[in-house]
């Protein structure tokens, strides 16, 4: 369970989060949407403890995350831009992250096979293409089987085949009863995988509900149109 209570965050004079209240207590895939600069990444980084909130509280499974780091054992995070130490090989990176998370027994081989990473295992990370790096990143995210998964723009750089595998992987994790947070600008992807949509606007939760609710509310045939409509509306309001 994730509870966010009246979360504010200022970067200097710039108010990014202006009082977010959000409780996620059921399993499923939650899409966090919003225009550029609406605070999606800041919200996610606050949950991970990378950004320290100005005020407000975040609780994971009932206990506050402030000055706590062990709660991160229950979160798998896929960052937006993945940059790894250039001197490392893919195999060594897997070993290192497993070592750092203190779970050396997890086996990445099924994910490596599935995403077609075998030929790259001995390559240095600096020589990988953007899409391959993202696959490495995905493997690292799904490997540890934690109850919470946070994916920031998981589709970046993936080819259509990998995209299908990503969808399957998210579906499998969902079936295991996990809570998955996703941000994406690809609406088809969001529509297909998400159970609920949280729409952020100017640092607040503007809408929360299912995709169908959103379509109904805005009178639009597709989620893409509904979101575009929502953005247009707020721009002129």
């Amino acid at each position: 369970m994730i509870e966010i209570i009246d979360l504010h965050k200022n970067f200097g004079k710039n108010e990014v989060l202006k009082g977010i209240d959000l409780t996620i207590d059921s399993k499923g895939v939650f899409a966090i949407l919003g225009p550029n600069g609406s605070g999606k990444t800041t919200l996610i980084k606050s949950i991970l403890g990378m950004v320290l909130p100005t005020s407000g509280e975040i609780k994971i499974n009932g206990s506050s995350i402030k000055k706590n780091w062990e709660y991160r054992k229950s979160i798998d995070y896929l960052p937006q831009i993945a940059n790894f130490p250039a001197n490392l090989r893919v195999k060594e990176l897997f070993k290192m992250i497993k070592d750092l998370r203190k779970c050396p027994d997890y086996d990445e081989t099924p994910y490596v096979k599935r995403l077609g990473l075998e030929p790259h295992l001995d390559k240095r990370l600096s020589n990988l293409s953007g899409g391959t790096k993202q696959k490495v990143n995905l493997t690292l995210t799904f490997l540890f089987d934690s109850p919470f998964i946070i994916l920031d723009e998981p589709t970046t750089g993936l080819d259509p085949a990998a995209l299908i595998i990503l969808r399957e992987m998210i579906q499998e994790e969902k079936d295991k009863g996990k809570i998955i947070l996703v941000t994406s600008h690809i609406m088809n992807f969001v529509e297909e995988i998400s159970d609920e949509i949280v729409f952020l606007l100017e640092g607040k939760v503007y809408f929360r509900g299912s995709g169908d609710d959103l379509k109904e509310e805005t009178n639009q045939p597709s989620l893409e149109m509904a979101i575009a409509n929502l953005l247009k509306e707020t721009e002129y309001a």
Partner: protein
Amino acid sequence: MLKILKYSFFDLIRSRWSYVYLIFYFLLSVVLLFLNPSLSKAILTLMNVIILLVPLIGTIFGVMYYYNSKEFTELLLALPIKRSSIFLGQFFGVAISLSLSLILGLGIPFIIYGIFNSTAILEFSLLILLGTFLSFIFSGISYYIALSNENRIKGFGFAILVWLFMAVIYDGIFLIALNMFSDYPLDKFALIASLSNPIDLSRVMMLLKLDISALLGYTGALFKNFFGSNMGSIIAFCILVIWTVFPILALKIKSAKKDF
């Protein structure tokens, strides 16, 4: 923290620059030993190079390592690891690999030359010890500066400025002050001023050990009195330790408050 230290250290010793740095010291020592018939003269020349170069390289490595590993640091921050462990681990990785380059680069030629059988062993050990202190102090300061400045150019510029101040400008101001107030008794001022800059402090300690304090004139005699006593040496080392610990503490506090 030890795990992060281990990975940072191995990442660094695999990089080209560590070897360049090591080979530079190696060649420098070989050339100096070859040209100088006396060991203490070689050590003196080496000291003049080290006292400026070690802080400069420490500064550059500290800043560069922070900015280069920034994205990876963000990856680590999302893992169940304590924040201070990440930054302290990385800092010690940088400082230890720099010190190791220095120790090996200077140590191997001198050992081959036969330092263990000579009377200059104490002077040489002090040189290595001071070089290690300076590596820690300056990589710590610059790592802290990099952590405080998001902008790379600003961070780099500021770190170099600190080095320039400590290595050059400080001495300039010091000399001008000595000159301007030469009518007053300045020995205490001179002593305190040299104690409060780690580069000056290292230089004075080394010069006194090499027994050429006569070059320093009257103040030199005072310095010899101070540093020659047990108390003086202990105070000097305490100040070096404070200079080492201070950036590490600042680093710890800063990293706990920063957003990524």
